[in-house]
């Protein structure tokens, strides 16, 4: 009899603690061509949730439960998973997603339902302009392009530049356009501005054209997978000057794919793994132990976005949407990518660092404040 009572009590206890879990929706592409980015982001999110739970939960002993859904990098699929997480799973907040085009579909759904959302990596300015429930953890397009142009002009003393970008990807196109604008404003000359189709592996046609303009520097705001190939082909065609890019470069794979071709390369990023702050060193160490790989920028941003959200829920002390939103607005926290506060458009105010690739390693070069 005692045994039965004990089991019953246990069941009640387990059920009660389960009911108390705070459900957080996570979204990212884990199938399809963007899957590698989605998986990094998911890893970062999972790590943040596990850390908070290990510390005893979010508030009142309540733990976070991550419900992660795949959006395939497809806007239609995004609408489905946003509806699912909010209507079916009743999550209290959403951390997602990677691509701006999908976040732009999710943001109105989150806003209408009053479920706060923070996108780890969607850089399109319009995402957070959807409403006051929508936040992001990354830079917006104009910022990195401008910083890249300033760096190329002032630090690298480049007077002519060329840019190559992905025609089908708003992130890389946005960065390239803003680079061009700023570089020309500074008095430099953009000798070539070339797009390439998404998914292509041969950039030599564009690069051959670019090199005919003899630029001092080439701006390549692509993701690391393309950057490695572009750098290799540019070097093969005889380009010796510096290459500059954005946070899409930040992956251990960059040097593996690009080899020595990415030497004399510089990119804007959220943090440097050389940063001595404990949270950075902890993050890099734990990530390596858990996933057997160095974290890339997406993993760091996934971690940060989740961390910021959980911190806001803790400070709100509530799972009500409006309370979490207000707490998010008041965010002032140290995460991997620095000290984060939000501006009036719910974009993070944080500084950028410039990383140099030297002897196959990422070396901290300088910090740029917004």
């Amino acid at each position, binding site marked *: 009899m005692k045994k039965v009572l004990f089991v019953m009590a246990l069941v009640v206890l387990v059920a009660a603690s389960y009911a108390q879990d705070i459900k957080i929706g996570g979204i990212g592409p884990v199938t399809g061509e963007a899957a590698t980015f989605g998986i990094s982001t998911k890893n970062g999110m999972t790590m943040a949730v596990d850390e908070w739970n290990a510390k005893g939960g979010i508030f009142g002993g309540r733990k976070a439960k991550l419900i992660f859904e795949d959006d395939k990098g497809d806007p239609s699929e995004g609408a489905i998973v946003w509806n699912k997480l909010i209507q079916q799973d009743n999550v209290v907040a959403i951390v997602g997603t990677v691509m701006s085009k999908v976040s732009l579909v999710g943001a109105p759904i989150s806003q209408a339902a009053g479920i706060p959302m923070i996108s780890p990596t969607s850089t399109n300015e319009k995402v957070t302009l959807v409403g006051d429930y929508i936040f992001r953890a990354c830079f917006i397009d104009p910022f990195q392009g401008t910083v890249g142009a300033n760096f190329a002009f002032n630090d690298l003393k480049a007077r002519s530049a060329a840019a190559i970008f992905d025609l089908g990807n708003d992130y890389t196109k946005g960065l390239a356009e803003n680079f061009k604008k700023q570089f020309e404003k500074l008095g430099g000359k953009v000798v070539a501005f*070339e797009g*390439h189709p998404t998914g292509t*592996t*041969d950039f*030599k*046609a564009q690069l051959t054209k670019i090199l005919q303009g003899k630029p001092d520097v080439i701006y390549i705001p692509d993701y690391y997978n393309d950057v490695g190939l572009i750098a290799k082909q540019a070097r*093969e*065609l005889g380009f010796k000057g510096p290459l500059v890019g954005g946070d899409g470069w930040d992956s251990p794979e960059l040097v593996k794919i690009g080899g020595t071709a990415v030497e004399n390369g510089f990119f804007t990023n959220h943090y440097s793994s050389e940063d001595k702050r404990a949270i950075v060193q902890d993050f890099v160490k734990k990530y390596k132990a858990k996933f057997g790989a160095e974290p890339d920028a997406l993993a760091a941003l996934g971690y940060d976005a989740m961390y910021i959200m959980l911190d806001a829920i803790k400070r709100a002390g509530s799972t009500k949407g409006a309370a979490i939103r207000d707490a998010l607005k008041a965010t002032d926290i140290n995460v991997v990518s620095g000290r984060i506060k939000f501006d009036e458009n719910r974009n993070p105010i944080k500084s950028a660092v410039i990383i140099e690739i030297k002897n196959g390693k990422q070396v901290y070069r300088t910090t740029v404040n917004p």
Partner: protein
Amino acid sequence: MGSIFSLQQILNGLQLGSIYALIALGYTMVYGIVRLINFAHGDFFMIGAYAAYGSFYMFNALVAGRSGTLAFLVLLAAMIGGASIAYLTNKFAYKPLRYKPKLSSLITAIGVSMFIEYFFSALPAIGPSYRSFPDIIVRKEIRLGNAVISNLVIIDLAVAAILMVGLTLLVRKTTLGKAMRAVSQDKDAARLMGIDIEKVISFTFMVGGAFAGAAGLLAGMTYPRIFPYMGILPGLKAFIAAVLGGIGNIPGAMLGAYIMGIAETFASAYNSLIGEGIAFAILILVLLIRPRGLLGEKIADKI
């Protein structure tokens, strides 16, 4: 304007065309013999690249330093990888539907293609991430006037040429080639002549798969980054090339592939904003003028 047609751009186009050609041949051979667009063919290419990747690390220690032997072994592995997956796909997904409506095999082909991609992407050992492809042969560059020729350009062109000559000899000069031609012309008559049709079809798939595998290795060496979805775009381009040349026609596929490679390079060099669309526009124009492709034969309709 002069810049578009430089020697450099022609070389760029030929290199791209060589890889398309090796993939396009598989499309066209399979189509010629079973009248099926094998949508999974681009994925055979991907598997070839992964087979090369895996075998490189297997053999690297064995033949330490002898990069020629190593390259040959890796090429062999890529071709065997491509041929095996082609054999399995034919056996389990297409053969049961051989005498069923043609379009049901087409949907099965799409299903197989999705399966291979998603399965590789989901397998923890492979995963969806980009992997850097090892340098099997050390890159060297030769300057020729304004143009830079890397040894990879030469390797790509040479391997493609050797394999294509080999294929032409196989089809024209051997008994098996004769059987392939017979089956593609008239299955029933071929069967009556005592040809084991299924064996010939299976063999054709394997040759096509082996070529796609070889293309996977070349692509891996030339564009050193592989991932499970890498076959989609080259597969599509090669398919277009095969149709452009006249699907079912082997020299047509080679011609179509080189035209695609060069057209794409020139179009991208002329105006990258419309480069992608222009390749398709050329294709449509050619097909409007020659509805059965460049080398395709006009077949009279039968009632």
